[in-house]
């Protein structure tokens, strides 16, 4: 399996916080990530690992340097174009599940795909069921999102992240709030899609054991890359 194509390139990233005083969070961070790899970003709390992920995710645009995803330069793009880019190419999984509570599980899954507008509603529904089935939560499809257990919600969140066949799935401590059984399910899912679908996984975690089982570890300390 060829993994030599860079899907993400970050060059000379510098990032500052201005509150309460000016403080450099990321110092000249550069690396590339190959397509289909399962990468974990680790580091102590305050090392800048989450900040880095949000820069890569295109949601934070206040930085110096350059980020290129899939050959497309994202730095200096307009917010609206970035929103479109996220919708199409990036899936998110957060620590605290973050489903929309007043929508059903199925609707939660369908929203990003409906926004993309690539498929008909019937197709989208079919895809949603397939993803739910893979993650073993298809029987929850018509429940309201806030009626599910934490583990179930996180599995639904992963299914949602996969809906638009994103190039990259990003996780911010996706297992941080889960028991070991559910953590294992999340990890296995990520591992499987990186192998089978050639989708790239970038996961911020502080779980050393979990990180050790990924393809590659990028370690940050005080805003600098000390292991890539």
């Amino acid at each position, binding site marked *: 399996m060829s993994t030599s194509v860079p899907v993400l390139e970050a060059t000379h990233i510098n990032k500052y916080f201005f509150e309460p005083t000016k403080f450099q969070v990321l110092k000249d961070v550069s690396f590339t990530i190959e397509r289909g790899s399962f990468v974990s970003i680790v580091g102590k709390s305050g090392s800048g690992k*989450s900040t880095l992920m*949000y820069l890569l*995710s295109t*949601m*934070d645009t206040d930085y110096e340097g350059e980020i290129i995803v899939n050959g497309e330069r994202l730095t200096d793009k307009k*917010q*609206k174009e970035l*929103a*479109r*880019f*996220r*919708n*199409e190419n*990036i899936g*998110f999984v*957060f*620590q*605290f599940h*973050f*489903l*929309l*509570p*007043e*929508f059903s599980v199925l*609707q939660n899954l369908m*929203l*990003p795909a*409906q*926004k*993309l*507008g690539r498929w008909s509603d019937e197709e989208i529904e079919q895809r949603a069921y397939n993803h739910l089935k893979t993650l073993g939560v298809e029987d929850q499809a018509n429940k309201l999102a806030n009626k599910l257990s934490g583990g179930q919600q996180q599995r639904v969140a992963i299914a*949602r992240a996969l809906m638009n066949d994103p190039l990259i799935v990003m996780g*911010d401590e996706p297992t941080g709030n889960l028991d070991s059984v559910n953590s294992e399910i999340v990890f296995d899912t990520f591992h499987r899609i990186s192998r089978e679908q050639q989708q790239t996984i970038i996961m911020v975690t502080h779980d050393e054991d979990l990180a050790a089982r990924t393809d590659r570890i990028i370690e940050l300390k005080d805003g600098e890359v000390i292991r890539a």
Partner: protein
Amino acid sequence: MKDFSLIFQIARTHLLSRVKQTIVAMLGVTFGISLFIGMVGLMTGLNDFTEELAMTSTPHIHIYNDVAVDRRTILDDSNPDGFNVVHHQKPKDEKQNLKDAFQIVRVIQQDERVLGVAPSVATQVFYNYGPVQLNGSVLGVNILAEDRMFDLRNKLRSGTLEDLLNTNDGLIMGVGLARKLNVQTGDRVTITTPQGYTMKLRVVGTFQMGMGAIDDVRSYANITTVQKIMQKDNQYITDINVKLKDQSEAESIAVMYQRLFGYRSVGWEEANATLIIGNIFRNILTYTVSITLLTVAGFGIYNILNMTIYNKMKDIAILKAMGFSAQDVTQIFLTQSIIIGLLGSLAGLMLGYLLAYGISKVPFDAGDVVNLTSLPVNFSITYYIIGIVFGMLTTSLAGYLPARKAGKVDPIEILRG
């Protein structure tokens, strides 16, 4: 369009997930609009009623000889450059008639803007009722021309217009006056002019204009009858009434006639200035109260939407992470306020209609002053359109500000916790 149906779906889910709040926000708009409809209906109903009332007694243009016109003294003629003071100048003993009145009538008849013109001769009289003398007036008219002007036929309570034409000593008397004199159709009544001429006339009919100021004092007679009791010739005319095709032109045409004929010429708006002022005040009141109500409703929506957005920060962040743009998020919340505004306004129109209907059924006894049994209410569709447009405008505006704020929410701060 696909995007919009998605945004609409999200907005609808948000609204339905907190029905109580949605209904409270809607009720604010509903009450605002319904009170506007009720108030504007009553106020314009009153305006229309007073205007109609004015029209029953006032011609579009009234031409008469105004005796009080200042005149130059002889001193001014003989010493034009001097500073002349004449104390206690008295009016000349002038005839109160319009000279060449029938000539004026013919000229006015040629005017394309005129629908009808009616000459008349009016005099003050005393109606003798036993020892009591009631002050009043007799108006000598061509009764058929007067009918075209004021629709007299429908205001008759007894007798017919033709009955008057067929006599030379007939009267059609106001109902209030007839009641005071205790006379009925067919009875004879004695009148005395200020000059002391006395004559017996026969009541051939009664009329009711719906205004005490007329019904209690006026009688109609033929022109020749009045000329006779005034002991004047058959060219003696004191007033010319003109009815126009478009009543809004009255003021400008009146000015023209005054210049043309040299007699005082008054449009109905000037003659009813107090009524018109009343209308303006009522309009100001209506719109002030309505704007206040809708502004309050707007603030209600603003508040509720602000609160909603504060509670939905997390959801907004997720939507943005999913790839919804700031514009999409703004549209989601703006759509919510527009839905609230639309449904609230529609409910307001219906409630407003019921309110106006209720008001129109309130019994109202104005006594002899005006002929009214219940409050007059205007149900014109115009005000319902104004109501919904106004309702939608305020809610959109009130919704736009918080919605724009929602679009500007920075997702990272929220997602990082």
